[in-house]
Each structure stands twice: as C-alpha cells, then as structure tokens.
C-alpha cells in the first residue's frame, strides 16, 4: 500500500522536477498584489515605535484608498512581528514576498533586521522602503550593489556629521564626548562619528557605551566629566537616555547634549524637567507651525486613532512618522509611474519619483546607480529640535537656538 503510493509520488516528483527545470515557475510571481508588507516590533520593548508606524501607515493608506487607491485598486497593509530578531525579519520578508506576494516591503525600526534583509530581498526581487532604520549599511551595501532597498529616513553617516557640527558650534571647551548604546545602531555610528570628527577637526574627548536595559551610567558620566567634556553627542533611545540623565543629575554634571533621533516625547515623559534643553536631530517636528498638508495628516491620524493621538505631543516618533507618511505617498507615486503591480517596474519607477512631501521636496527622490542616493532625505533636510517645557519643539521655538 505505502509502497505503491511511494512509486506514484516518486514518478510524479520526477516528472515535476523535469518540468520545473524547463519552465520558470510560478508564473504568478510576475504580478504582485496591491499590498504593503511590514515587519516590525509589534510586541516587546519597542512596540510603541511599531504602533506609531502603524498609525501613520493606516491613516495614509486610508486617505489614498479613499481617493480611489492606486491604479484603481486599494492598497492593503500586512503587519508581521519580528520581535526585534533578524531571523524573524527574514521569515517575514519571505512571507511578504512569496506567500502574500506583496508588491513592496516596508521597513521596521531595527538596523540589523534591515541588514539581514539585503540578500533575501535581492533574491526575491522585492523592493523595500524604510522609514526608520538609519544604519548606513542598510542602504550603502559593502558590495556597492544596492538595487532593491530605498529609504526615507536619516542616514547615520550624514547624521554624525550634522551632530558633530552642531556640537562643535556649541562646545565652549571644544571637548566633545560620544555616548552610544551597545546595539547595531549605536556601534554602527561609532566609525561614522570618528570620521566626522576628523573631518571637522575635532578630537573626541571620550567615547562611552552602555547596554540596553542599563539603569545607571554613573561610571561613564564621571569619566566624561573628568575628561572635561562639555558637549555630548548622544546615540541612544528613550529609556536608557532617561537613566543616563539621572546619572548626570546625581553627580551634578550638566553638559550640552545633542542627540540622534532616538529621543522622543516619551523621553520627556520619563525624566520630566531633566529633558529641558536637550537637542535632537530629526527630519520633522509636529509641535511647531505646520503646513496645511502636515496639519491635514495630523488631523487624519487624530480622527482615526482618537484614543492614541490627541495632541501633536502624542506623535511619539515625530520624525519617523513624517518619514513614513512621505514614504507611503512616494510609493503610491512610484506605483502610478510603474503602471502595474510589478516589483521590477516599481523599483525602476522609484528613480523617477519627484514629490513634495512634509519633510522635503524630493527632486528626484532616488538616483539610479548611486546607492548613496537610495536615501531620499538629505543632510540639508535635517532639523534641529530641542526639549522645552516637556515638549520636543523646533529649535527656533525654544531658547536654545544659536545666538551670537
């Protein structure tokens, strides 16, 4: 009985294998579904980041679909949790690219997860567009052959230069320290910041790191203080930064801090007045005067998620949300240019997008054959912001702007 079944199966397998060799299967792969797949942290310590991304994307898609969708079809959003683990991110990418057959994949927060996707995306021929993960190597691949990954976010290599310049301008003693978290994002920025410092003619007077979950950074802060550092470039997220501020407060150390965009409104909520005056590089600020488009975007989010978004201060990831908003709209533009739900055509269409978004005039958004310019947001679009009265404000709206 089992023997016969086996023979039949073996024969069919052999036949099928022969066919598979000759014909490229499956034909359906050429046409993709009108869906955007995203792999991000839905659960775990960075779940809120994922939530903010979801709020932005769902609102933007609702708006786009209300206007008739793209190419006459509504766009769907498919969300998978990667628990912050690269292997799961790859699982999810495969699911998005193969099982769901989505036309594009949207990026979550973590840099290593995006790095792990480089090869699978190229293999599947699945375009990826990121709105957060800022690691340089996500876009600038070591082999120089990034064809599928695009980003509407900051790029660490540019951010480091920007922050070093800001720090240099603010430091009285000229002694600048770098404090970074022990993650791929933090560690990845270290060579960039050193290069930027060299370029700017600054020597770093201290480099300190800590691990996710660390609760006390007294040792690091004492070392920086004793080295005479009066301005810190910070590369960390809310919780650990809050703990660092506590450690500074304890020893009465109050240097100026210019931070990468890991600091959000949640940081101010966690440390209260200690956040005052800390500067953050970002791409967008919702608490300042808003353009009509930005106001409309905020209103739409407020209307769709009334218990999450009440005021602009509830936009916990201000820059990332603006990035994602622009990215989705550019994606819709690119699809229109491509004229079909086809991944290769979509990829090529990205290079032809010219779009005026919340953050910048993207003209062009991306440049073919230049992987450095698979980043749509340029250093000149970066905006300095600062915490003031518990809010993250444009620097102009605070007392911390540069005055001479």
């Amino acid at each position: 009985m089992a023997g016969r079944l086996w023979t039949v199966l073996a024969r069919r397998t052999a036949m099928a294998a022969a066919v598979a060799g000759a014909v490229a299967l499956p034909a359906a792969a050429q046409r993709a579904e009108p869906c955007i797949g995203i792999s991000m942290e839905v659960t775990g310590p960075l779940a809120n980041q994922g939530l903010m991304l979801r709020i932005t994307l769902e609102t933007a898609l609702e708006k786009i679909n209300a206007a008739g969708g793209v190419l006459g079809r509504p766009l769907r959003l498919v969300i998978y949790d990667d628990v912050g683990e690269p292997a799961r991110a790859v699982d999810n990418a495969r699911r998005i690219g193969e099982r769901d057959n989505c036309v594009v994949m949207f990026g979550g927060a973590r840099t290593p997860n995006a790095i792990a996707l480089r090869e699978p995306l190229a293999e599947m021929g699945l375009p990826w567009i990121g709105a957060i993960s800022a690691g340089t190597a996500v876009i600038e691949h070591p082999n120089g052959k990034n064809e599928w990954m695009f980003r509407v976010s900051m790029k660490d290599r540019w951010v480091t230069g920007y922050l070093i310049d800001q720090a240099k301008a603010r430091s009285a003693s000229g002694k600048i320290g770098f404090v970074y978290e022990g993650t791929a994002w933090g560690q990845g920025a270290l060579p960039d910041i050193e290069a930027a410092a060299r370029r700017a003619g600054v020597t770093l007077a201290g480099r300190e790191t800590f691990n996710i979950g660390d609760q006390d950074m007294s040792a690091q802060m004492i070392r920086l203080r004793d080295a005479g550092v009066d301005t810190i470039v910070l590369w960390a997220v809310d919780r650990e930064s809050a703990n660092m501020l506590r450690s500074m407060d304890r020893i009465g150390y109050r240097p100026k801090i210019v931070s990468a965009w890991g600091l959000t409104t949640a940081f101010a909520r966690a440390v209260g007045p200690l956040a005052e005056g800390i500067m953050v590089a970002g791409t967008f600020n919702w608490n300042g005067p808003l353009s009509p488009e930005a106001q409309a975007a905020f209103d739409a989010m407020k209307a769709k998620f009334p218990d999450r978004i009440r005021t602009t201060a509830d936009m916990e990831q201000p820059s990332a949300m603006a990035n994602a908003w622009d990215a989705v709209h550019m994606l819709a533009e690119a699809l229109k240019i491509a004229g079909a739900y086809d991944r290769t055509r979509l990829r090529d269409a990205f290079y032809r997008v010219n779009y005026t978004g919340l953050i910048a005039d993207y003209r062009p958004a991306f440049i073919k054959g230049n992987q450095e310019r698979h980043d749509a947001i340029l250093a000149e679009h970066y905006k300095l912001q600062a915490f003031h009265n518990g809010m993250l404000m444009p620097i102009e709206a605070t007392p911390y702007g540069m005055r001479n």
Partner: protein
Amino acid sequence: MIARTGGWIAAALLALAIGIFPYLGDLLDTRFPTSYELRLVMRAMILGIVVIGLNILVGFAGLVSLGQAALMGLGAHAAALLALRADWPFAACLAASVLVPALMGAVLAFPTVRVRALYLTVITIAFGFVFVNVLREWVSFTGGASGLASIPRPTLFGERLMATRAAGFNYYYLIAVCLMLALWVQWALARSRYGRAMRATAESENAARALGINVTATRTLAFAISAGLAGLGGGLFANLALFVNYETFTFSASIELLLMTILGGSGTLAGPVVGTAVLFAASQALQGLQEWQTFAYGALLALVLFLMPEGIVGGLARLRAKLAGRGAQERQTGAWPHFVPGFDALTQDRDEPGQATLITRDLTLRFGGLTAVNMVDMEVRSGTVHALIGPNGAGKSSLLNVVSGFYRASAGTVTLFGQAVKDQPPHVLARLGVARSFQNTELFGRMTVLENVLVGCHIRYQATLAETLLRLPRFLREERERLAEARLLLEVVGLTDFAGEQARNLPFGHQRRLEIARALALRPKLLLLDEPAAGLTHGEIEDLVALIRGLAARGMTVILVEHHVEMIMAVSDRVTVLDHGEVIADGPPEQVQDDRAVIEAYFGHGAPAAQATVPAQ
C-alpha cells in the same frame, strides 16, 4: 515505549514528507511551497536538531540547560567566522560548528554536574549572558551588535548549496539529512548503554553509581552531545541566513528551545520534532493577533502544560497505553530462583575460596557529632553469607554505605579482595566487583524491567561511543550478548513476562527481585543486600533465602543487612550484631540468637529473662 515498527514507520513518513515537500506545488499544481514556507521548514528543521540535542540532555540525562541558544550561537559564529576570516571550506566550518560547542559544553559541565545537577542550569544561564555580551562588545572580531553579514554561500563538492526553485534544493536536503542524522544519534543513544546510563543517572544517581556508572562523565557526555547538536543547528543556520548576530541567540531563545523540548514530550524520541513543529508553527499562526500574540503564545503554552504535563508525545503515549491497557493480558510471574543452565556462566567471577573478601579495621563514620559507625572490625570470608543485624539506627546501613563507597569513612581501613580501597567512589568499587541493593529499592522507575538489568551490564561493554552510534559489529555483538544475559537473569528471578513493563509499575516483591537481578548483571564477587526482605511476604522471603544460598553455593560472597531474624537464621553463615554503631556480638547465627546482649538490644531492656533464655524450638 513506542512500538519499534511504529517508530520506524513514523520516521519513514517524516523523511518522506520532508523529502517531497519542496515539490508539493508541482504535485498539487499550486503555488506552494514558496520560499517562505521552505525557509520556515528549514528553520524548523534546524531548531529540531537543536531541540533533539536538548532532549538528550533534559529527557535522558535529566539536566536542564537554559543556555542552549548560546551554544547554538557558538556553533553559528564558529562556522561564520571560519568561513569569513579563515576561508575554511563549508564542510570544515560545519565540523567546527559541532566540535567547538561540544568542547565548550564539556568544559562547562564537567566541574558543575559533579556538584549538583541544578547548577548546570545556573551556569548555562550565566554562560548565555556572557556569550551574548562578548558577541556584542567584541566589535572587531564578531562584528558586534551588527553581526557578521555576507557570509559566503556554502559549497560542497563544488556545488553551491541553495534552497530555491531556480537553483535547486540541495541545501534544504542537506539540512534534512542533518535532521535525520540527529534523530539517528538520539535513537542510537537511547538504545545503547550510553543512553541507558544517562537515563539511569537521572532516575537514581545512587543506583547508577552502584552499578559502575561514572555519573559525572555520563552527564558531561550528555551535555557535550547536546551542545554539539546545538552547534550543528547553529552552523546550518549561519549558512542559511548568511547573516548572524547575537539577537538570535538570547536567553529568551534558550527558553523557547526548552519549551519546545518539554512541550513535545521530553525523553520521547518523537517529542523534539513535534514540539518544535507545534511551537514554531504557533508563533507564525498567532501573527494575526498583533500586539496580543505573545500573550496568546504564553496562554497556549500554559494550556498545553496543564492538559499534557508530559508533553504532547508523552500525553498521547499515555492515552494509547490507557486504551491498550483495557485488554491487557495477564502476565505470568515465574517461580524463582530459577537457576537456568546458563546462569553458572554468569557467576564465574569469584573471589578465591577461603579468602577474606572484606576486612574492616577500626572503621569509623561520623556525621557531625553523631558517630554512626564506631571502630568496627569485621571480616567476611569469600563464598559465605554474612549477616549484619541490629536494631534500628544501629549503623548497619551506614556500614554498608562505607563499604560500597557511598560514604567516606572518618577513620579506619577497608580492604576488598585483598586491596585497600578507602575513599574509592562507588563506581570504581562496582568495577572491582561490588554490587549492592538499596533499602528503599532504587530502581530506574521509568525504564523497562529489561533496561534496568541492561544498565547493570553497563561496565561490561567494550564498544566505543563512535562504534555505538554507528552501530558497528562489535557494538551489535555486545548488545546481543548483554541482551541475552539480561533476559537470562530475568528468567532466574522469574520476571521474563514483565521485561517490557516500566519498573515503577511492578508490584513490590517483583521490584526487589528486579533489583537483585540488576545487581547480578554486574557479575559481582561481593553482593551487598540492604534489607532485601523488608515488605516481602513469607513465601517471597523463602524464595529469597533460596536465591542467596544458591549464589553462595556458586562462590559469591553476600553481606546481608536484615531485620527478619528468621531469614537470617536460615541463610547466614555468620552474623555480626551492631548496636549504636558498635559490634556487640559476632559469630554463627545460633550463638548470636541466644546472646543476651542481642536480645536486649532488640527486644528491650525489660525483656523477661525466661523468654530470652528459653529457645522456642
């Protein structure tokens, strides 16, 4: 125990399902599996390999590791680093990914498990954290938190190993072969003296030591094997993902691996595959629940543990046993002792007749302030039955424990077979020819009756681990011989019909018989019996007497600790009486029986003189 043929059919079906899976879409003419499903199955197979290793540790050896993901990571990084930094070929990298963690496992386990099994758990937790921390911080070597990217795609015999429709599925099949190999290793271990020794140490450390098993070495071996399989999984993973960083190998991943092991049913052969498949599939299927998926995962886990505390396979096996048990046939208990013809061959090892098999001089054992054995001089002649009696707490069992190496004497000497053996551990003494039973029978309860006796044969195997795993001729021959021997011993004690029964399910009297058969499997020159008659009926005691006499007649020396005076009178050549740790009488039984000090020690100070002096016979 799963029926043998059933197990083979299940394994064949598994192999068949894995084998045709990539081509399923062609057979059914659908777009399935895509590279997503293929990848899931490959990841599940890799995890399956790791979980099989963990099952050997948890299910066989009874040790718990919460650092298994780190060992997997060690394998993954060994493979990745050697490929990236040293340009090693794939096969060599894969071999290193097994050997490095296996060595690490041995280094971690050896000092730990000799102290307390629980400490291995603690050490593995710590190791996991240290490992992840080092990976993250040693940026120049491991790539730090960003990990190692662009690992070269593996090639074997000039073939690029891929797992796509376009390029072929050879990497998929390589992983499948590794999974089958891991299952083979698990199966071959389970049905060998090594696996039996692991399970024996988990069930009763004392009994295992008394049967000549080096518990520390056995546990270290179990952990090394399990670490090696974890490393193999890691090596395969690194070459599948072509990217590794610490986040795949954290503490929570270790917990997940342990959950897969227990959920499938630890100690069962199919459990690892089932547990891995179920939990891995669940984490994919629960994606739809968004921010509540982790909660649902925890709830599912708790639910399964409540419904099937022995895991899925364990629970199903129990259910099946229950259903099958309805029509269970009567088992025939044989009369015993039944000295079958082959038995004499098993009792050839003996001490020279007339020798002093055991001599103790000034033997003293103190626990804190209490002196349990006090300056005991004792001599036991070979081929005799020597009884050791005395009221409760007189120090009889303590003396036995010193002689068999379980307690270390505070002072005095022990000479066995003419050799000074003070401070030798039990397993060394067992190899010299000392076998013993325990006061509260210490059987390996979850092992079958036959397996219990086979554990007794442990020290008489020559086949190496490699020969055993490959099931080479020497191993097969030895296994056949030992099996025949074990069956013969079961016939001697009349338990032939119970060979396949779990030992814990035997009636009490049968458990005693089994314990003696197991001790005899060691082919001892000296047999120590600690209250073998306790709890036995009169008929059973008479059989026991016949057995002991039969053994002595064949030249075996027997030391008997016993309360049943009737039995002692019937069986012993000489009696030593202890009270409060000291020898109060020593001599032939008839003489001791009427010794006033003895009667007082037993019967009480107020014993009427008339009764004590008038023999009833």
